[in-house]
């Protein structure tokens, strides 16, 4: 399905409909291939979606287009002309603007200055004219048609506000292609609508948009053309009309996920007290009267937007939000969870959202990562029982099928999937009975993902664990949970049995939250 743009020859000039074209681009990092002979064409003024799972090579591709990385092989054409050694500055000069997930704004500076900074830098100004800064900022805000307090420090803005600043800033740089990296992750339904309106508006000025996402519905709604990549290779591309959700999923994951929803063994566990039960759990504006009970063998999914209170719910159950109101009971016994240590002792485990920054000790070995929480148990006196420690680690490496010759191997040398298994193993070693998984398979390749899901389901079924699974990935929830609750503004708005619902229904509900 390769596509090459139509060429018009006008008086010897090569005119192209294509803004940027990558031909057979290859990128390796220390021998690992991140992109394999990938070709991608973005036409002028089109909204193009780049779809792929986390770790499929999307961000590498973005960095090649923005000149941060140089490809090891392949060619880049902009406006039909071949570009050699595209540098970040050159990329900006060609009109490529990237809006990163973290927005790359300066929280310590005002909105006005953030907006004007690129223009000032591009004009290679030495001296700053604050009146000019204001003019540029006003112009930027006007172009975008939004209202922003120019004198506010950016760090005080909401996420949506920061995104607007980032978009407005990109527009001021005479962009011809704006790459948006997962722009909707942190936005509410209403904010996403506003974003889409703005994206269409930008398009109407002849600016192309590359919308990088893994959310199917959004892609289908906004884009005109879709390119799907998997494991660094292009697996499909074509007009959006040719795709539907199932097809994109199949391309993204490489297989049809035909798995039945998880079924709770009510006979076996139904009579037991809930592993965890909350009554009217509240915390400021983050949590609003949460009533939740999870029995052994249950996997309960939580769906909600970023900032819906889902992470706060997890943290409060893990003892990291002391000062909550309402009660928490574990195995039928009311407990005050005001420190993580108390929660851990009560059998609660938490696999955090961001594995790399919150879950792992990257430059330490697998053994220390696994045992981090268990050292006190291993050292009843003063000294750590080395033999026992080794035995535990070996058992876990075997049980969790972690691919490593030894427990001494540094965790940073493991794949995403293996890393996540190390974190889960850490909690299994504490004999946790209630497992909170916040985005359990973010950044994990497709194969490992299925493997991790299988492990969680097995453990829950056999050992009678109770699991709270928080995820952005609606299919993940539908396939692995027996119940799903929808969270919004700190409260549960709806509860569904997975068997009675579909991905579409949940996605629709999520979208309609305001």
């Amino acid at each position: 399905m390769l596509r090459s743009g139509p060429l018009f020859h006008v008086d010897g000039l090569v005119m192209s409909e294509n803004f940027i074209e990558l031909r057979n681009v290859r990128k390796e990092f220390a021998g690992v291939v991140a992109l394999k002979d990938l070709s991608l064409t973005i036409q002028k003024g089109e909204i193009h979606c780049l779809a792929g799972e986390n770790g499929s090579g999307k961000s590498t591709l973005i960095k090649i287009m923005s000149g941060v990385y140089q490809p090891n092989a392949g060619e880049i054409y902009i406006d039909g002309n071949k570009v050699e050694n595209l540098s970040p500055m050159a990329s900006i000069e060609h009109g490529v603007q990237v809006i990163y997930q973290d927005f790359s704004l300066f929280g310590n500076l005002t909105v006005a200055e953030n907006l004007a900074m690129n223009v000032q830098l591009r004009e290679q100004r030495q001296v700053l004219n604050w009146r000019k800064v204001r003019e540029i900022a006003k112009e930027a805000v006007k172009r975008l048609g939004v209202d922003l307090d120019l004198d506010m420090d950016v760090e005080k803005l909401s996420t949506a506000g920061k995104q607007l600043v980032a978009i407005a800033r990109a527009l001021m740089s005479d962009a011809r292609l704006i790459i948006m990296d997962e722009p909707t992750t942190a936005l509410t339904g209403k904010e996403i609508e506003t974003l889409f309106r703005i994206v269409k508006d930008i398009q109407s000025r002849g600016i192309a948009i590359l919308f990088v996402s893994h959310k199917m519905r959004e892609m289908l709604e906004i884009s005109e053309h879709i390119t799907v990549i998997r494991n660094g290779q292009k697996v499909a591309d074509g007009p959006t009309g040719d795709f539907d959700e199932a097809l994109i999923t199949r391309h993204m994951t490489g297989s049809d996920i035909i798995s039945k929803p998880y079924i709770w063994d009510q006979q076996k566990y139904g009579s037991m007290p809930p592993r965890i039960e909350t009554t009217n759990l509240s915390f400021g504006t983050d949590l609003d009267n949460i009533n939740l009970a999870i029995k052994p063998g249950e996997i309960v999914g939580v769906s909600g937007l970023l900032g819906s209170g889902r992470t706060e719910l997890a943290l409060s159950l893990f003892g990291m939000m002391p000062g909550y109101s309402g009660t928490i009971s574990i195995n039928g016994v009311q407990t005050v969870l005001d420190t993580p240590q108390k929660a851990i002792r009560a059998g609660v485990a938490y696999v955090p959202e961001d594995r790399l920054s919150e879950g792992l000790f990257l430059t330490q070995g697998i053994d220390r990562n696994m045992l981090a929480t268990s050292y006190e148990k291993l050292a009843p006196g003063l000294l750590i029982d080395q033999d026992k420690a080794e035995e535990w680690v070996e058992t876990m490496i075997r049980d969790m099928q972690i691919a490593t010759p030894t427990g001494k191997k540094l965790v940073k040398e493991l794949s995403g999937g293996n890393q996540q298994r190390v974190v889960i193993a850490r909690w299994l070693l504490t004999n946790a009975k209630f497992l909170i998984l916040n985005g359990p398979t973010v950044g994990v390749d497709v194969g490992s993902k299925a493997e991790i899901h299988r492990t969680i389901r097995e453990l829950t079924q056999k050992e009678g664990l109770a699991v709270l699974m928080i995820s952005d990935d609606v299919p993940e929830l539908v396939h692995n949970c027996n119940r799903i609750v929808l969270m919004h503004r700190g409260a549960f708005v709806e509860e569904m049995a997975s068997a009675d619902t579909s991905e579409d229904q949940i996605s629709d509900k999520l979208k309609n939250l305001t």
Partner: protein
Amino acid sequence: MKQAPDFRNLLNKDNNIVQLIAMTILIFVVMTALSPDKFLRYYNFESITYTFPELGLLSIAMMIAMLTGGIDLSVIGIANLSGIFAGVMFKKFTTDAGVADTGFGIVLMGAVVALGTGLVAGALNGLLITRLKITPILATLGTGQVFTGLAIVMTGGPAIVGFPDAWAFIGNGKILGLATPFVLFVVLACLIAFMLRRTTFGINLMLIGTNPKAALFAGLKREKMVLLSYMLTGVMASIAGIILSGRTNAAKSDYGTSYLLQAVLIAVLGGTNPAGGRGTVLGVSIAVTALMLLSSGFQILRFSNHLIDFIWGLFLLLVIALNAYKNRSR
């Protein structure tokens, strides 16, 4: 160009212990070659075993603070203040016969006072860092001033002299033919090394230094461990202070000020990562030995102390460059 990767491989081999030993041998050989008759004398090495433990203990103290990504700029202040408090206490108990005659008991009390000073001072640092969340650099910069200031207040400026004989033994005596400070250093170094590898506290410090956030999510008692680590740092510094005051038979507010930089340098040279998570007692011990040999060699060659400072600084920068070079190959 072809040579470079091989060179890097060599450097990477088995962390930097091998590299440190090689450096020590090199210094030894060069110094021997430059001044064989003076450098190789037994007396020279013996005198090193008296002088290096203070610095060695301070460097280990610095390393402990660095393990959690911190630093302790108040170690010298703590060391001096500990010696001074002990000295002040001895003065109080001075009889007409003089302190020299007083018994073992009072020396023990002095040690308790000195160690207690280190413990309290370290706890103060730890509390400022964990409770008030002051960055370690600034917190210890401030407390260092306070400790040194208190030392001035206690002494009024000049040194406190006249420590008991038994106290002097800690700094000047011999146990089984070896310098007491040296024996103390070896015992303490082994103890700390053991503690870092085999106790929950030690491994927790490594983990906290590697990733403080992950430590929190793994349920480690982060604040408690960091507090304890600064208390340990304080105690180590006060032991260095005891040895220093015992060796010189005096305690003063501005002794050993050049040790601060040297302790940082030795810790970094010994393979400690100032950002936290990595450091070994063995590495620091070899580094301190290497630099003491260098220093003593230069003294024999009649280099001024200032020039030695220059070379220490140069060394620190070279180590930084070398480490950066090594890391890039990874």
